[in-house]
């Protein structure tokens, strides 16, 4: 083919450009559709989980289910009250240990020592702690408390859960305190307040919402932990007897129920799962209400 006229030439160029353009547009569309498919593929499991938990769980829940200990295995009678009670006790204790320590460590990292070998070491190991599998942390409760006292106990479970919760609280506290405007602290200093007062009565209230949110996220996280509880609180079908004895917890109960070969146990498992999700949901709803009602906006 000879290129005689100018129009021939530009024709070929435009055809080539068009072809390339069409290909580029095709690739672009292909990728866009691909990402949408991925999003849908990721939403399907979530929808299915929520639907199944609600659908199967709701039929299991009754007054007896919420207030009675488990009946004989396979009978489908009784309830999961000890597990609800145990979860509240163990998680409550763990939070009671981890919250003050975590918040104080966060304060230390943000208000007292930002740079230096020691704070950086604390930060590093705090991150390491965040990434450790919960079952490894269960070993801590087992070796230090169960082995020395000779009994599976609430204490051991609370210790393990507190180690899982603490680094999350430290992280959130440090990050939240960091964004509190420095002028607030200066105002405190100019009034001649002690650093303790500035931190406790000016900086902390300004960062309250963020820290509370972090604590609630951390509590929801430990409320759903199963693995460390296997090695620490064991799980019984009885109510709480004391912090040196074993106790039950919802995630543990779900696991045991799911491994039994009875339909009635599976139904109980779904019921317990629904209760667990509702408890976590109630916690974050409660927090949201609290924050909305008394929100404190720092003036910058």
């Amino acid at each position, binding site marked *: 083919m000879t290129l005689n006229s100018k129009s021939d030439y530009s024709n070929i160029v435009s055809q080539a450009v068009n072809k390339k353009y069409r290909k*580029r*547009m095709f690739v*672009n569309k292909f*990728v*866009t559709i691909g*990402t949408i498919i*991925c999003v849908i593929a*990721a*939403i399907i*499991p*979530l929808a*299915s989980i929520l639907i*199944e*938990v609600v659908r199967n769980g709701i039929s299991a829940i009754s007054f007896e289910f919420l207030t009675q200990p488990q009946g004989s295995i396979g009978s489908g009678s009784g309830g999961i009250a000890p597990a609800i009670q145990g979860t509240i006790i163990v998680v409550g204790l763990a939070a009671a240990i981890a919250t003050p*320590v975590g*918040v*104080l*460590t966060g*304060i*230390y990292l943000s208000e007292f020592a930002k740079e230096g070998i020691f*704070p950086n070491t*604390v930060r590093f*190991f705090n991150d*390491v*702690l965040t*990434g*450790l*599998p*919960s*079952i*490894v*942390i269960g*070993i*801590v409760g*087992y*070796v230090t408390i169960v082995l020395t006292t000779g009994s599976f106990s609430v204490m051991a479970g609370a210790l393990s859960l507190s*180690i899982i919760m603490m*680094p999350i609280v430290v992280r959130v506290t440090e990050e939240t305190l960091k964004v509190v405007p420095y002028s607030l602290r200066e105002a405190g200093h100019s009034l*001649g307040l*002690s*650093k*303790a007062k500035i931190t*406790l009565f000016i900086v902390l209230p300004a960062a309250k919402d963020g820290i509370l949110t972090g604590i609630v*996220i951390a509590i929801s996280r430990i*409320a*759903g932990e*199963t*693995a460390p509880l*296997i*090695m620490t609180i064991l799980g019984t079908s009885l109510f709480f007897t004391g912090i040196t004895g074993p106790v039950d917890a919802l*995630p543990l109960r*779900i*696991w045991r129920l*799911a*491994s039994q070969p009875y339909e009635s146990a599976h139904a109980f*498992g*779904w019921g317990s799962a629904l209760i*667990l*999700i509702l408890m*976590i949901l109630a916690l974050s709803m409660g927090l949201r209400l609290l924050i909305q009602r008394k929100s404190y906006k720092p003036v910058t």
Partner: protein
Amino acid sequence: MGSKHKQYLSTLFTARKKRHDKLFAGLAVGAAVYTLLMVALVGFSVTKGSVDIFSKEGINFLTKSDWNAVEGRESYGALPYIIGTLLSAGIAMAIGVPISLAIAIFISEIAPPKIGTVLSFISELLAAVPSIIYGLWALFVFRFWTRDLIEKPLYDAFHGYLPFFAKTPFGLDIFTAGIVLAIMIIPIISSICREVMRVVPYSQREAAYSLGATRWETVRTAVFPYVKSGIIGASMLGLGRAIGETILVTMVIGNVIGPGAIPTSLFSQGQTLASLVANEFNEASSDLQLSALIALGAILLVITMAVNIVARLLVKKKVKIKSGAISQ
């Protein structure tokens, strides 16, 4: 008021102020020390618990594959579970990372902000669901989906020629465990990727668009180069979760022990380090077996620590690059 009185007051207040500060600083340092102490406690517990088995089996514990708890013939090896852990986490990564990346691209680059917010909310919701509930769902619902929709067709099509599809699918196997792990880590990886992509300066994208790039070309040429190490870091954080996840894997992986736990196909029943600990811990018949189980935890600790440290370094490096780009 005499000046003496004034002086007295001021020293009183300074003294009180100093005392408060000292007390408070002491508490804060104490809390920081407590954090380190807990780390030491983890190290101490795991070492103390696993010392028995390592002194009996030595380094062979890592390469042996029997798991025999019968008294007098006790012999333990961790190899099958190390393989099972790496394989299931590998499947989770192979499925989870591309999907997470696609979701992150969709939310941060393609979707209108409103849809993006809704999707972010959903992924937060998904991240708050406890793994036991994923496990319950996987055991009673999802297992049949994988068996009938993925494993059976793959088996029918390939079982003659490809050895890794050669096992009658059952639904409770390494493959299912890998997929459910992927579902669990997708919200984690995609939310970090999204955050990393968000900090790429908008001028980069504008430059690409002004040269006539399509949306995908913009992402590929203007966004990716900035976020590469951030994406790798995010994936490795997800990998750390997948390796350490216990209860969910225990419920779907099939739980075999001994040499039979070395997978011969993707559809083999398997066992991971974490799932074996969860399964046998309360039924362990001897101290040596307990020690062997804790030693599995020790191996898990070392693997996840390494993965997490590398991941955090990568994410941090990313953040430095990004702040450099903004200041320029």
